[in-house]
């Protein structure tokens, strides 16, 4: 179990059409992600971070090469199969939170469980637990437009982990947050990663985030420039 490979890319290439030419956003990416990882894909804007996360998250397909998610070949997934995998095993966190504006905090967090047709009692329990983890229970009845950025992102994280997915994919989750909120959110995610063994795959170019990462993959112009594991004590001194 410890060494379970959850995501694997082989010679992954993604090109976007640009007029008659095509622009290579990702080139020959060979990566593996194991269960329980806390990994950041780091690189400047335009280096291909979002493109890579979208493919891993089954929202997009490779142009060439292959990507496997939980044993499934992503390029061969139908719309329906993709939706099912995302529904059951993936959590997404976005830079802009993307909460449903008409729903309360509670209902936003509940929504993925409704898609899983979970029983009400079980659902309520899971939602309150997720809100407790994210220390946002007092806002349960509030609509997203009354939340601060930090609060909204904590709700979004609660929504992503409420169904206890195997993998959480977070595309620049702190890009719109100040330092205090960024640290708080990273610390919460580190704790979840420890407690639930959830795999976290980030993209970021935020220095504050990098110090929490246990593995750093550097992307430059769509290529992997480096891929390093970080010593655990590096974080221990942080507090």
């Amino acid at each position, binding site marked *: 179990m410890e060494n379970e490979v959850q995501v694997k890319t082989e010679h992954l290439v993604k090109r976007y059409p640009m007029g008659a030419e095509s622009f290579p956003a990702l080139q020959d990416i060979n990566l593996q992600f194991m269960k329980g990882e806390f990994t950041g894909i780091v690189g400047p804007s335009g280096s291909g971070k979002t493109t890579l996360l979208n493919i891993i998250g089954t929202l997009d397909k490779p142009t060439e090469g292959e990507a496997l998610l939980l044993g499934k070949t992503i390029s061969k997934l139908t*719309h329906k199969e993709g939706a099912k995998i*995302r529904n059951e095993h993936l959590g*997404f966190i*976005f830079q802009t939170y*993307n909460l*449903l504006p008409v729903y309360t905090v509670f209902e936003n967090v509940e*929504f993925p469980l409704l898609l899983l047709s979970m029983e009400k009692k079980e659902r309520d329990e899971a939602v309150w637990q997720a809100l407790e983890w994210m220390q946002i229970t007092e806002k349960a009845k509030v609509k997203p437009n009354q939340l601060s950025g930090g609060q909204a992102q904590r709700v979004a994280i609660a929504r992503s982990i409420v169904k206890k997915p195997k993998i959480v994919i977070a595309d620049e989750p702190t890009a719109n947050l100040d330092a205090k909120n960024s640290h708080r959110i990273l610390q919460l995610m580190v704790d979840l990663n420890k407690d639930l063994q959830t795999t976290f795959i980030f993209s970021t170019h935020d220095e504050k985030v990098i110090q929490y990462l246990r593995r750093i993959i550097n992307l430059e112009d769509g290529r992997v420039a480096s891929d390093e594991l970080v010593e655990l004590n590096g974080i221990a001194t942080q507090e």
Partner: protein
Amino acid sequence: MVLLRLAFRNIWGAGLRTWLNAIVLSISFVAIIWTQGLYEGMAEQVSREMIKVSVGGGQIWHSNYDPYDPLTLDESHGQIPPICQQWIANDQAAPVLIHQGAIYPQGRMQQILLKGIDPGQQIVQLPTQGLANHDRLTGLIGARMARKTGLQKGDYITIRWRDSKGVFDAADVQIAGIFDTYAASIDQNQIWLPLNRLQRMLAMPDQATMFILDREFSPSKIPEGWLFKRQNDLLANIQEIVQAKSVGASILYVVLLLLAMLAIFDTQVLSIFRRRKEIGTLIALGMTRSRVIGLFTLEGSMHGVLAAIVAAIYGIPLLVWYAVYGLGLPIDAENYGIALGQRIFPIYSAGLIIGTTLLIMIVVTIISYWPTRRIAKLKPTDALLGKTQ
């Protein structure tokens, strides 16, 4: 259930826009039910009146009789068959003899029909007893005929006719009564006379053009040379006229409906455009595109449900008011082909209400679904970035 709740929240959250759509749509709702109810009421009312005063339980016509061809009228009568004699004796049928004639109101000749009916008949509710026991020749006319000719009760009018031998003759008729009816077919351009007098005048003893049957009576056999006209066939004409009128009126609410559809279509297009990031998020959360399409379609259709509720709020009192007090139509709505002197009481049948609701729901659903097809072409990655293709 998930979609239903989210859809409801979304359109509820859209506030004013949702209500504007619902109100516009509700107006078509009420307008359709009101006008159609009015026409149904009109058809029903006129049919009832027609049965009472002219159609009865059906009629038996001489095989040559064609009410739309006055030229053949003089050959459209025959000896009253024995079986009909029996019905007449049993008060199951009333014979009517019809012939052409002319009157000269204010010195101008006017072609009219002379209709002979037994003053003692009980089959139709016309004041025919007014024709009985008079030494003088007396006649009955309808209110429209009276208005047109300026005749009043007690007045005399000279009628002229040609009898069965081709001999012209004339007589003065005293108006014994004026009756009021919606049914133009027994009012316009005609005068009702005692049957035996007319038979004598025309030298057509024991002859008739048709028989009106009692409402409770259905004939076991039809004599040769005569045709049975069922009640429904005789009323079909009216229903057709009313239907034709209602098609004319439907243009009004087709326009209303179109406006409502335009508003909903516009709302859908706008909402899909504005919420593309939300669409991307829903897909990322594990919804299939077809469910997202279902969500947006449902949101659009819910305007129909809200419209029905809004329509019920102001529509029911309005419609009930008209059902109770009726709608007064101009006295001489002669263009309608049916005399409408009185108030019309609309009838809102279950079929009308269910049919209208179904029609509106289907149209709203199609209109709501239409713009959502672009969601199917939307890439989730682009949607999340707020891009559209």
